[in-house]
């Protein structure tokens, strides 16, 4: 079974490298990290991910804008996006049944198990 391709877009380098380590440790995922939000589209086109984990509060280009750009890109349209953010509270996410701005959302800090569960639920098969 081919590994799922996960694109991790977050300006927080320590977080992305650790999350990448953890996800790859499971043996089920191939993870690419992009710490520059403005390069997100380029990275996504190259990497063709099965799922994008997207931070919301990032300098220069907020996650919402990145999501909108992906949604409106003919080539990338339909790529599953999961927000992973400290900007929302867990309670808020639960109240909205995990969907924020048309995309599933996971509040930081999340355990690896929670991230994996989210990926398994939403990634392209």
């Amino acid at each position, binding site marked *: 079974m081919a590994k799922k391709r996960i694109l991790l877009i977050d300006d*927080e380098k320590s*977080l992305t490298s*650790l999350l990448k380590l*953890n996800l790859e440790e499971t043996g089920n995922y191939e993870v690419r990290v992009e710490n520059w939000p403005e390069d997100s589209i380029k990275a996504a086109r190259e990497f063709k991910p099965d799922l994008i984990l997207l931070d919301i509060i990032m300098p220069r280009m907020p996650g919402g804008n990145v999501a909108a750009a992906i949604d409106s890109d003919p080539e990338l349209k339909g790529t599953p996006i999961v927000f992973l953010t400290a900007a929302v*509270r867990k309670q808020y996410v639960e109240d909205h049944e995990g969907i924020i701005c048309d995309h599933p959302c996971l509040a*930081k*800090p*999340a355990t690896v198990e929670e991230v994996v569960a989210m990926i398994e639920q939403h990634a392209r098969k």
Partner: protein
Amino acid sequence: MKPGIIKVLLVEDNPGDARLLRAFLEEIPNRELELRLAPRLQDALTTLDEAEFDIVITDLSLPDSNGLDGFKKLHAAAPKCPFIVLSGIDDESLALGAVREGAQDYLVKSRLDPHLLDRSIRYAIERNRAEDKLITSEAFYHSLVEHLPQNIFRKDLDERFTFANQRFCQLLGRPLEEIIGRTDFDFYPPSLASKYQQDDQYVISTGRPFEVTEENIAPNGEKMYVHVVKTPIRNAKGQVLGTQCIFWDITERKRFEEQLQLKNAQLATNAEALRRSHEELKAAQLQLIQAEKMESIGTLAAGVAHEVKNPLAILQMGVNYLGKKVGSTDENITMVLQEMRDAIQRADTITRGLLDFAASKKLNVTPHQLNSLIADTLKMVRHELSKKEINLVTEYADALPKVAVDRTQIQQVFVNLFVNAAHAMTGGGTLTVRTAARQMASTTLSEGSRSAERMWVGDTAVVAEVEDTGQGIPEENLARIFDPFFTTKPTGVGTGLGLPVSKKIIELHGGTIEIKNKPGGGGVRVTLLLKPAKETN
């Protein structure tokens, strides 16, 4: 007697008598006299018209006048001048008549001598002067009493009027002669009359003045306020002979006083209103300052929480990774990793609490049955309660109006309160939850809330009470329980944010939260007041 020349007018038609008198007058020692002679009444009247005299000495039988008529005419021509009448031995009775008509003295011609004449003149002038003074003084007092704007009267010991001034006569509407000899009962209603006589009797029996302000009803029915002063009348020996009274209308003054009092009272009311609005303003200001403070704390808390979350996420990932890589061979490493996970969990709980505290003020308010909302919330803590062996008693009021609340937020409040109660009853106990509808007895004013929503006196509030049977809250802590981060719970159990968050949520709903030790001790009672949902038909 005033020094200088005495001017004498001698009215005498008999030249012999005139000469004799002149001779007598010149014989008087130490006295300078200026004598004018008028042989007839007409001459005398003309002379009196031209000049003033210190004394007039006149015969009563003159060629152009005989008897008292002539004297009267002369006296009328010089009313202030003293007169001495000369008479013959046979007409003394006529001379006495002249004295009754105002002459000072009479002298019988045949018995005259210089010494007698001198004395008569001197006395006549002096007596005249004294009489004049007396008349002037009497006129003065009479005028004073009659023209004063005050009512004045006197009574004898038998309460009969002996005097009344014009003013009092006017008031009674009777002439003086209809007042003298009568009593108060002839003019006033019996109750007033006997009151007045009582006052008189006080003055008579004590000999002391009596003073009062009272209502008086004049015979014409006019009501007025009067100030009355009654004093005893005494004779030379000091015996009381009767009473005298002066009283005057003070209705106007009384009315002014009443107006003044009214104005004063109004002023006091205004001042009170001013003071109250000032206090309200002060309270509002305090509230605003507090709200401002809470808001900046909220903003700060949100910022901190957000900034802490990313590092926490990194730590979480790191611990995760290490946990998998190291495996569970080394007990110490396993323990260290677990401690780190717990620490991360704690930090996460606090940051979440901070975010709750700083949470957006937008409420998703819909009408809810408070009873069922509480029952649902109790299910969420059921496990916690049974674990601590806590009995649950619910006393739900029937037919409670629905409350307008954000269900999730209010549930969060109740969870906080139930958990607090559970924490307070470590050795088991009873949690009592009660609901009721209640009329507000005062208007709520909650500091720290910027919401203009209030419950006013007379509004119906929906009340929820949460009681525990724990140890209660020490007095010194009661004032601080709503302060962020104030907690008495062990580290890791409480964040110090549960109550501040709850308070904020309740106040956003326009409600109030009050936490007190139960009267008599033995636990805490939390009282929530919530607004009923507006009836929508």
